């Protein structure tokens, strides 16, 4: 599985409350989450997310288990999230809804093209190529199916 997008650089320890605040969790309306994604972190981020690869610092997605955070990013058009480390629940939620999450520490330059290939196991940004440990075959299959729901349907 591969993809590319423009880099949106974020810091470390971005918690899921910052991705989508608790006050927007009353609804099942995905478009509301998209409208308010990262609102409490920086309102200038949301308009730049379509086709973006988020490049964050350590411990991305920490805190609450709210899957709404992964959904908000995915539906806002985020192509993948790259960070040196992810909080466990967010990592799993992202895979489960088909949002690639890549464990890798890279130097981020705003808007720079970032390319990744999960089968071959690398991330490329600027002129630099970073090796990444490939995801397990099952995780890759889940991602390629677009998430656990579709993966499961295909295996019925």
């Amino acid at each position, binding site marked *: 599985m591969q993809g590319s997008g423009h880099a949106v650089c974020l810091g470390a320890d971005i918690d899921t409350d910052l991705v989508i605040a608790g006050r927007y*969790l*009353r609804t099942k309306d995905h478009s509301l989450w998209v409208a308010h994604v990262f609102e409490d972190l920086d309102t200038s981020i949301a308009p730049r997310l379509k086709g973006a690869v988020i490049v964050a610092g350590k411990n991305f997605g920490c805190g609450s288990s709210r899957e709404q955070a992964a959904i908000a990013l995915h539906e806002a058009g985020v192509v993948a999230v790259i960070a040196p480390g992810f909080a466990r629940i967010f990592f799993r939620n992202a895979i489960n809804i088909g949002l690639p999450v890549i464990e890798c520490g890279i130097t981020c330059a705003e808007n720079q093209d970032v390319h990744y290939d999960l089968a071959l196991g690398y991330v490329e940004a600027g002129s630099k190529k970073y090796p990444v440990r490939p995801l397990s075959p099952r995780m890759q299959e889940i991602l390629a199916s677009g998430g656990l729901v579709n993966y499961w349907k295909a295996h019925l």
Partner: protein
Amino acid sequence: MTATIVEKIFSQKCGSEVRAGEVVMAPIDGAMIHDITGPLAIQKFYEMGGTQVFDPERIIMLFDHQIPADSIEAANNHVYMRKFAAEQGIHNYDINEGVCHQVTIEKGRAAPGEIVVGADSHTCMYGAAGAFATGIGSTDMGFALKFGALYFKVPETIRAEVSGKFQKRVGAKDLILRIANDIGADGATYKAIEFAGKTVRKLDMAGRMTLCNMAIEMGGKAGIVAPDKITWEYMKGRRKMKPFDLESDEDATFAERRSYNVSDLEPQVAVPHNVDTGVPVSRVAGTHVDQVFIGSCTNGRFEDLAEAAEVLGRKKFNPKIRVIIIPASRDEYLKTLKAGLIEKFVKAGALVEAPCCGPCMGGAFGLIAPGEVSLSTSNRNFKGRQGSTDGKVYLCSPATAAASAITGEITDPREV
């Protein structure tokens, strides 16, 4: 072959010896859903072709985050979940019992040796009852509701060995803030944290719940305390089970062992905007507060409220600040009420609310304005967590919260 308590639980459930690092499909003994993540989990259950849940008696459903419904949207979520409960024959505690984690443990829905999942990150609290319990997202929960099993990577275990005797008005919350500061916000990612040692053996269930509750604040997949006399005594009347031995082998392979001595531990305060920022209270003493919240799954039990009442004594809360006290469950509320503490709190100037999450998630009521400071016994002080992103949240113990509510500024509870 030696094993950690977590490896023993997974081995028993999987019917074969498994060790940390292995990925297993394990059956689950309980699955908890609430009003925030439940609706999405139910949607996922249906999307996966679910028609009948694996076992209605193993599903714990209740509403606690936005109750009584604070909006039409929340009311709609409640209706959606009630309908699902009725359809599936699931007992729904609805808005009546309190905060999900407290209720799950006190109703005996998590017990030693069990694997319990919850669509909430603080599910790790059930480790206080000797269960392996972990928070999951809604898609995983949809899968769990349908199949009664889930893929798990058996985690390595960090063993926190605690010795020493707490000073007066220093306790489990101060210890876990200290441990979080030591391990860091991601220091236990993908790992379980086992709390052990003489001090933990002496801790009551309330204190053990406070410790396990905050394992997630270090990225932990689970927190756990090996069941002992105190655990089995607590389980009496909640679950029909014969006590059995379940503990890590002394020579088991741990990711690491860390030692803590609490004898010199000062009350701790985590400063904005991360949980691993705990400092001795003396470092932030005198900081003005606008609101004090005593409650949540972390510190809303009778023992916590009794400690706050003890610190309060015959004094009044500072009338210039808001003091919000919320027992974690109906049972805890009743115990507090019978002990005369609710009256005491109300007379001292506090606002006592019915059991729910309250200001902890910043989704319902009790929010703070820009520039305001909240001092809270809950578990997270992330930016915007309790309202405005220009506000600040400090975390502390019930004793420190009560002392500060009297003075109106962060105060060492040993000096009140």
